[in-house]
């Protein structure tokens, strides 16, 4: 039996990682409250939204992410990779908790769901914790995560500027002059969120990946107004279509996962045709930036592991530091054969928009910044061990790619840097022997105290 969003909330509570707020909370205050709580937050009463609750900051630390995934904190990527290696087909169900309440047509009103205002310079209230489902007749179902900015009771903006399978699907529909149907599930287990964040090959259904992570199939239910399927145990679902208007509607700014207030972007509009939810729904506020960054890290790390293995390299450990938002930097230690330091760099730099890759030997603890600095200091010659690749795929939220100079819908490029911090070929290993204290195995401090 797969775990649900509610099961995860219970796990957090049992681990002492959940704080309940019993006083009624105004939606305009909720982000500041979640930011001040060391634990995940559950607001039990929301002003003006009877029957709704709100949970936020659920995976804002690696500890809580590890709790969600069920692994040691440094092994989340390996756990994620296991899920990728054993995908499980979802199953269809007839009745679903996420459809206990159905609101259709003219009754659709996004102001009736707890749409929070999150950051000072945001262009409007945002939904940040989405699992967005779309379909293409040739390539099949896709699941991704895209933010939604409130525009009107029936419309939101959606950030579709970055390259993605759904952007490609939308582009194909746009060329036919047709809308793209989408369904947005909110309040799903972190495994579904992780799978949605993973840049799977276009013909891979991310719900299979989520099933692999759970070790059980994800139950799906048919949507009420669009030809799509969503997780049956979601808390809330928005069904509708992306209008065939291209990248023409203002969206943003938004407090991005890069810790930066983004720019106004030009994006399509999502018109909502139907809202379904549980009778007692819990809205999920994914708190930027940390929650997004901790969710990104294992996805980037798993993609890095895959790239290394596909290049016939043996990785020992991998890390996407949260300082790079778990997205732009990959550090890996490998069991190296001659030349593989450079091969590993090329593999890691092929991952999504990773722009800095560092490779070390397996004697370096890449989770220890001092050990990593030591390798960078004594195993690197800048004229031999550094690779720069220009004109690779970039991401809009990185100000250094100057995305504002592009036209509407334009895609930025970036330069990528690789540093081979493995012992260079031709240098005898004896020059890297670490100092050892004389008598360290025999002398005990307590004997002298």
């Amino acid at each position, binding site marked *: 039996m797969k775990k649900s969003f509610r099961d995860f909330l219970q796990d957090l509570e049992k681990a002492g990682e959940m704080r309940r707020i019993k006083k009624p909370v*105004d*939606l*305009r205050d909720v982000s500041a409250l979640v930011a001040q709580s060391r634990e995940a937050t559950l607001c039990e009463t929301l*002003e*003006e*939204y009877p029957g709704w609750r709100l949970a936020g900051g659920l995976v804002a630390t690696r500890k809580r992410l590890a709790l969600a995934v069920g692994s040691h904190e440094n092994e989340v990527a390996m756990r994620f990779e296991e899920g990728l290696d054993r995908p499980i087909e979802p199953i269809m169900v007839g009745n679903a908790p996420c459809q206990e309440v159905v609101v259709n047509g003219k009754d659709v009103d*996004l*102001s*009736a769901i707890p*749409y929070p*205002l999150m*950051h*000072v*310079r*945001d*262009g*409007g*209230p945002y939904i940040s914790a989405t699992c967005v489902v779309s379909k293409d007749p040739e390539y099949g179902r896709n699941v991704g995560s895209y933010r939604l900015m*409130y*525009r*009107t*009771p029936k*419309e939101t903006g959606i950030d579709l500027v970055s390259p993605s399978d759904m952007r490609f699907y939308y582009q194909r529909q746009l060329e036919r002059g047709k809308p793209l149907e989408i369904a947005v599930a909110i309040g799903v287990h972190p495994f579904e969120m992780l799978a949605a964040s993973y840049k799977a090959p276009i013909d891979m259904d991310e719900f299979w990946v989520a099933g692999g992570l759970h070790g059980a199939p994800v139950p799906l239910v048919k949507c009420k107004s669009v030809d799509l399927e969503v997780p049956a145990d979601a808390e809330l679902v928005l069904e509708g279509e992306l209008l065939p208007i291209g990248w023409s509607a*203002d969206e*943003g*700014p938004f407090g991005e996962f890069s810790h930066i*207030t983004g*720019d*106004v972007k030009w994006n399509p509009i999502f018109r909502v045709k139907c809202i379904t939810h549980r009778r007692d729904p819990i809205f999920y506020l994914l708190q930027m930036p940390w929650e997004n960054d901790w969710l990104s890290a294992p996805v980037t790390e798993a993609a890095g592991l895959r790239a290394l293995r596909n290049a016939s390299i043996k990785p020992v450990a991998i890390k996407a530091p949260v300082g790079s938002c778990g997205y732009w930097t990959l550090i890996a230690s490998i069991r190296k054969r001659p030349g593989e330091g450079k091969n590993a760099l090329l593999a890691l730099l092929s991952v999504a928009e990773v722009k800095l890759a560092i490779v070390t030997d397996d004697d370096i603890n890449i989770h220890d910044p001092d050990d990593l600095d030591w390798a960078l200091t004594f195993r690197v010659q800048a004229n031999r061990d550094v690779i720069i690749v220009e004109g690779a795929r970039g991401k809009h939220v990185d100000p250094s790619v100057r995305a504002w100079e592009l036209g509407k819908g334009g895609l930025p490029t970036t330069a990528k840097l690789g540093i081979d911090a493995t012992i260079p070929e031709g240098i005898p290993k004896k020059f890297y022997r670490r100092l050892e204290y004389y008598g360290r195995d025999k002398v005990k401090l307590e004997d002298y105290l």
Partner: protein
Amino acid sequence: MSPLAETLLEELRAGPRQFAELVDAHRDVKWPAFLKAWGEVRSADVLGRDEDGRYLVKAE
């Protein structure tokens, strides 16, 4: 258009505003009512954005 939506439009005619500045000016309004009024303003199709992302009313 509701009185609150009219007020929001007047405030934007007076000068560009961040969305949060509009929210701050009407903290006494219940959130769903504010969202509905904001939807009316957006539907009027008169809004533009300045380089800092502030909303403004385009030349009428």
